């Protein structure tokens, strides 16, 4: 199928090549910065454009991948849906739950397929934890803790630094864990959050959710570490526990000298046969080809926004937010 990629930054570049690997043909690359559109288009022998709304409507485009800054997702997804194109959209789906619902309604009206990139659902280690929980091997789960983050992200044009746009670490990064927890354990009832959102820039957030079946979850997100990236998970049941720490990896290396001069950080490596980002595209392709239900359904994406947005509201008011 013919694909247009909108937003040719970090994620757009990854999606273009992984989609290509899954049989999609990248025919157009759009970015509000034409130079970035051109750079990616060149790699795929595609056309470049800076008018992305026009690009979405091109008759030869069948699928649109949206990888622009979060607050711009909704308008592109709606335009694509109205033009009858299937859509892959990076998470967070939208910046507010209201816009999420409005955009979901547009998608449903047009009958196109929408997959939002909650990629943690495709990570093999997270899937292995989910399977253990689901087959009851640790009994009834009463507590879950997740931890994700490291260095402050460096996006194009510093949009990550503008919390009004990115929502900071809680909305942009912890949303991965909040979504995964909901995937495994169902809908939370209320959420409480504390978040730094400093202009240094530096961000760190703690989110607690309550589930009526008798479960508390605690999610820590950091963009406050001087380097590195780490993920930790702990799931506690009445008959056992499962824990995961990305620091425990098969490869760890440290260079004596780097291009920058000094020695490098230790970056643990954990290569997998197929990247989880590619699994997203395989899932999307199978949905379109065979009608197989994908791992992330459109309503899930709105729910994730609702939870993460509720968390930010709680951080602002100091009160729990009912979901």
């Amino acid at each position: 199928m013919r694909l247009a990629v909108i937003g040719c930054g970090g994620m757009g570049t990854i999606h273009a090549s992984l989609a290509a690997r899954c049989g999609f043909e990248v025919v157009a690359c759009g970015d509000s910065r034409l130079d970035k559109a051109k750079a990616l288009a060149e790699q795929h022998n595609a056309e470049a454009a800076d008018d992305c709304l026009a690009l979405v409507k091109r008759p030869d485009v069948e699928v649109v991948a949206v990888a622009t800054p979060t607050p711009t997702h909704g308008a592109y997804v709606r335009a694509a849906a109205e033009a009858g194109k299937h859509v892959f959209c990076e998470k967070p789906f939208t910046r507010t739950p209201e816009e999420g619902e409005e955009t979901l309604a547009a998608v449903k009206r047009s009958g196109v397929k929408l997959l939002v990139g909650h990629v943690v659902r495709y990570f093999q280690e997270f899937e292995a934890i989910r399977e253990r929980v689901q087959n009851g091997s640790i009994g009834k789960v009463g507590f879950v803790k997740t931890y994700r983050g490291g260095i402050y992200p460096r996006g194009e044009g510093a949009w990550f630094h503008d919390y009004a746009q990115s929502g900071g670490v809680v909305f942009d990064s912890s949303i991965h864990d909040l979504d995964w927890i909901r995937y495994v354990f169902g809908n939370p009832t209320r959420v409480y959050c504390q978040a730094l959102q400093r202009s240094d820039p530096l961000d760190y957030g703690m989110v607690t959710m309550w589930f009526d079946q008798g479960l508390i979850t605690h999610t820590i997100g950091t963009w406050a570490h001087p380097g590195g990236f780490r993920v930790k998970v702990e799931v506690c049941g009445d008959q056992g526990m499962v824990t995961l720490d990305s620091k425990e990896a098969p490869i760890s290396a440290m260079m004596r000298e780097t291009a920058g001069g000094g020695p490098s950080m230790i970056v643990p490596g954990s290569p997998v046969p197929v990247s989880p980002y590619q699994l997203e595209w395989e899932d999307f392709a199978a949905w379109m080809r065979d009608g197989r239900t994908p791992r992330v359904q459109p309503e899930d994406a709105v729910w994730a926004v609702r939870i993460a947005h509720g968390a930010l509201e709680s951080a602002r008011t100091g009160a729990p937010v009912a979901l």
Partner: protein
Amino acid sequence: MAKIGIMSFAHMHAEAYAASVNRRSDAQLVAVWDDDPKRGADAAKRHNTRFVDDLDAFLDSGLEGVVITSENVKHRELTERAAAAGLWVLSEKPLATTIEDGKAMIEACRSAGVGLGTAFPCRYIPSIQAVRAELEAGKYGDIYAVTCTNNGQFPGGWFGVEALSGGGATMDHTVHVADLLRWMLGKEFVSVYCENGHLMGRDTALDDVGVLHLEMDGGTIVSHIASWNRAKSFPTWGDVTMEFVGEKGVVEVDAFNQKLNVYDDRTMRAQWAYWGGDPDLGLVSDFIESVNERREPAITGEDGFRALEVTVAAYKSAASRQRVAI
């Protein structure tokens, strides 16, 4: 030579405190009292001292100080008795289970002119002391956020009985870290929001998991997990961990992560064997010196009370689902 008695072996920490007293050359373990005579008599034998069945006789046996390691709710009455007899008191944590009891204990010792200490041995863990010194020297700059845990296996017994413990995991596993945060950052708590419940199926009706969101002076945000969420098969009893996020850097302390990984075919269970220093000895040593010097212990009743306030406010928050001022 400080003459020390131990009041009750209900709390398992009594073992380590008794052993610590016996390791000091400036102290003598004179007697044990316990409202469970068999438990007390056995303990006295183990620690080479005598058991005194009658509380009045015990208080009158030439003691200068007592370590109170009873069930939580009995701390107040035993403290009042000991203070009235003119004895220095080291109370196991939590100092008490209610604000009223905590205040009464402090008042009883103040008016009797005896010292009152709270057993927060975590202040004597070398890694905690090292990070405190770095924080104090400004190595990490201003501290903006801290995330902490005090997880454990379910201790069982009276810990799960409200009439004796005063509360579940939130009661048991909040005060150590609350005290460390006050001591390491030199700040007081302002508010708490708490979610807790009986979620882990432990053999009790009480909360076995608590999650606290705290605020300290100057806006430092803190989360803390107070739990009995560790599986029976977990390789150790639990943990005390803190991650500090500061202006100049981050630092993570995993206070008991000085361990050997032990694989034992006889138990068919992997275990962590702690080889780090003994924090209980530091705590008990200070108490003995405070008795000998007739001074307040380094970690006071007031410190115990401040940590207790956090716990009491946390339960209030959990019941009302609102943030509660401390």
